[in-house]
């Protein structure tokens, strides 16, 4: 499903001495089936953008469009069409067992028992957990990493047409981060679900995103293919962001060798570049 923001501005608590401007005139189109990343420093308005895109927050001005349908306070998105996971989604776990928590949304959607079961098992498997072994456990007995996965499975179980994720890897250990990103990419490639992910770890976004948007101070400051934005170290540094490690490595190599080393976006690419340099030296 295509998601669009048109000239969206957001002021929290407007009309009070505490009014806070979070977004300023942001326009954005998320194409069906793409993987879009939204990056920016802390407090730049990323979470606000995601909440507005999901239709759970109403902007102060501007339009939000899901497919052909304009979203407003009265016209909320049809239930189950948008999967939304805020930062630390494990905070939303509440049922007695993992199975009943993950099945909450499909049950609310009024699906029959067999379909509910299929969805729970599929979505738990999609985030790399074993439905048989954790299904009957209390979600609060799991580790944070497992809780995170279960919470995401609870969102996936709606089989939404777009999945919006706010820093899904925050507070996870490096191995778990890597794995989660891989699973998300795989899910997108298998099901074609539109994905928007908010984050600020560029290594992670390099592995995830096809396209990338940078916001800073509530404004959209850059948008483009992931490879062109992530290799633009000056742009990233201007918005308190670090380029991916591989890009940094290549610029260090450029400085050391005096040659122009093309920036690499993946580890495979970086290794290849290194091999070439070493071959030249030997």
């Amino acid at each position: 499903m295509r998601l669009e923001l048109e000239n969206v501005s957001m002021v929290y608590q407007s009309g009070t001495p505490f009014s806070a401007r979070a977004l300023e005139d942001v326009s954005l189109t998320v194409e069906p089936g793409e993987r879009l990343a939204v990056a920016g420093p802390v407090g730049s308005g990323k979470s606000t953008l995601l909440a507005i895109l999901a239709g759970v927050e109403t902007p102060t001005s501007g339009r939000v469009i899901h497919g052909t349908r304009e979203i407003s306070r009265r016209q909320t998105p049809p239930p189950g069409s948008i999967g939304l996971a805020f930062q630390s989604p494990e905070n939303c776990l509440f049922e007695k067992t993992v199975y009943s928590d993950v099945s909450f949304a499909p049950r609310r959607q009024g699906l029959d028992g067999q379909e509910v079961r299929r969805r729970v098992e599929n979505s738990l498997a999609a985030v790399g957990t074993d439905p048989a072994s954790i299904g009957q456990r209390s979600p609060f007995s799991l580790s944070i990493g497992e809780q995170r996965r279960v919470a995401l499975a609870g969102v996936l179980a709606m089989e939404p047409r777009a999945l919006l994720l706010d820093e899904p890897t925050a507070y996870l250990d490096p191995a778990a981060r890597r794995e989660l990103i891989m699973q998300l990419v795989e899910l997108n490639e298998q099901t074609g679900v539109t994905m928007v992910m908010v984050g600020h770890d560029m290594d992670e976004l390099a592995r995830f995103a096809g396209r990338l948007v940078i916001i800073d101070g509530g404004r959209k400051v850059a948008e483009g293919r992931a490879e062109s934005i992530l290799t633009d170290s000056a742009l990233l540094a201007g918005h308190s962001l670090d380029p991916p490690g591989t890009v940094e490595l290549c610029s260090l190599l450029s400085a050391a060798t005096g040659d122009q080393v093309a920036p690499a976006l993946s580890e495979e690419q970086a290794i290849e570049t290194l091999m070439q340099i070493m071959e030249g030296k030997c």
Partner: protein
Amino acid sequence: MQISNMVVGQFYPGTSILHRVDPRTKIIAACAFVIVLFMVNGFEGLAVMGAGLAAVIALAGIPLSWLWRGLKPVLFLLVITFAFQLFLSGGEELWRLGPVTVYRAGLVQGAFLTARLLLLVLSGSILTFSTPPVLLTDALGRLMEPLAKLKIPAYELALMMTIALRFIPTLVMEVDRIIKAQKARGAVTSGGGLLVRARGIMPVLVPLFVMSFRHADELALAMESRCWRGGRGRTIRRKLAFSNKDAVFATVVLAVLAASLWMGRFR
């Protein structure tokens, strides 16, 4: 109501004399005001008190829209008070509308009680409008200090209030997020029958409790690791001090209260 539109605390920032008067003076003044409010009979006394309050509101530079926000939650109570008095008394009939009869005494009594309640709420509001919550609890703690001699943990009570206040905005934001996330999963948090709504609360209530306990745990740990061990011997960074502003304010309040007592009781 959308929670994110809710004003967290009622403090309205400003630099008026009312904002700069020591919070202890304001608390005592508000208490005195309330006591006099219940001593005064008749509208003349209330009118003097109302005028005094209006002057203070104007002095503090608090806009009417802000005042209105503070009154909205108690509006229902005011209307109920008025309605009850209106219909439930006997005496001289004023007018009749079907089964409903309005009596003169009821009308007068209703108006009086409603006005008194309104002034009561407003006087409390002025205090919270013009004083940051943390200063308010500091001042309450200081005022309760003599109670410590009676083995009442005054300092700890004040600290508890401060901490509670500190966490209100955090919890409000978190609850807002939880409600939205659970709604996106199809939870029903408004509308529907009572049973539906009661069940709809669980997806919000359980996470809220889990989160509150976690906050409490983390805070306790953080306080202990920084050697917090109760109020004894604690020094205070934000010192409260009376100044001549307090004397002026107290005098004016005393004058208004004396005038209303004279108008409303002893004349």
